[in-house]
């Protein structure tokens, strides 16, 4: 269920742009409000939905779960440490859920990404993902499949 932005509620603060792990939340060039530029690539992590201070981002439900007329909305209350979801089905049934924002001790384990080491251009151009290979707990280099071992044919 990808996300979308209500333009009337968005104030262009950039929190969703900042937090999106898929880098698909961007700022519209005409109105300087956030938008999901590629819903098909949405990981459905809802980080942007939860991070939005203006409740401007919603979830577009799958057709089998919540077809036209549905709504999936979230209210994040930092001072209470809670996150509430309201699911409204097409037939009018509503369900409310309240959860703690995280189960980790409050105020700890917040990654200080800004204080981290600056990314080098070589790392950006590399095929490797962040912290690879050391983050995979493997010895040495990443395993590679020799090209000669590929069968002939079309690969997708």
């Amino acid at each position: 269920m990808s996300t979308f932005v209500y333009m009337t509620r968005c104030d262009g603060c950039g929190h969703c742009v900042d937090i999106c792990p898929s880098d698909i939340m961007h700022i519209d060039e005409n109105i300087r409000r956030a938008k999901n530029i590629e819903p098909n690539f949405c990981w459905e992590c809802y980080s942007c939905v939860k991070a939005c201070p203006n409740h401007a981002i919603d979830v577009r439900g799958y057709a089998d779960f919540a077809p036209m007329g549905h709504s999936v909305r979230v209210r994040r209350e930092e001072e209470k440490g809670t996150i509430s979801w309201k699911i409204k089905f097409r037939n009018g049934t509503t369900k409310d859920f309240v959860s703690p924002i995280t189960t980790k001790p409050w105020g700890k384990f917040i990654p200080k990404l800004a204080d981290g080491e600056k990314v080098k251009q070589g790392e950006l151009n590399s095929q490797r993902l962040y912290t690879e290979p050391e983050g995979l707990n493997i010895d040495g280099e990443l395993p590679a499949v020799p090209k000669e071992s590929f069968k002939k044919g079309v690969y997708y």
Partner: protein
Amino acid sequence: MLETNPFSLLSEVVPTVVMQGFIIAMVLLIAFGTIIQMIHHKNLTYFFNNAKKAKLQATREVGAAEKAKIIAKTTVYDIGTTSELGFGKRRLAHVLGMYGTIIFWIASAMLVFCYTGADKTSSTLWSMLWHVGAILTCVGGFWFWFFLRVDVSAEAHPWYRIIKADLFVLALLACSTFGLAWSYTQFNGQEGLSFLFFALFVVSNLVLFGGVYWSKFAHMFYKPGAAIQKNLAEADGSRDNLPPPADAPEQFGLGIKREEPKHY
């Protein structure tokens, strides 16, 4: 310089009635641009449809007195202090720019209509307000332009990258900056520069008010409407489909306070 009415010196060259006509034309341009934009973007249709939907989902009736109270509170707090921007630099810059612009425009109209002309007296207060308004607009606007714009702060674009959304803020900044420069050079008798800055001041006004249809100018009319609708929806229980506030104590403090979006 701050106590001098720049339009008074100008009236020796440009008739007062032309200046008054220019201001009226600018007001008409705002109205025309906003109406055309509303028709084209269907903003009003969207707002009214939303209001109708909210009314159907309301769980309680909001009386006229309560409605008036909510609207008054929204106007004073939400709109008057742009509370949607939270507490921080963006809000401060917006408040500076907003009040600076309002003061600048009101003072411009007052100076041209009431204190400019052969038989008119001068007003130190309105002249001061005109300059202070322009300075406040410049402080808030340039702060926003160079450091706080979301495409600069969160998307890591350079400050000199100009997009369509910048039309409003750049035209506004040009008006205030060229207005101040014109007033300064005119006061010091630098005729050539004074004429140049005055011409740029007029052009930037034409771009600002003539570009309402294409720019974000009309957000100053839409945003208050959206804020009032949001607060009325909270009061009548429809809440724009949002869940109710969680029934939990405020126990976790600021441990999870969000950070500035600067992690690109």
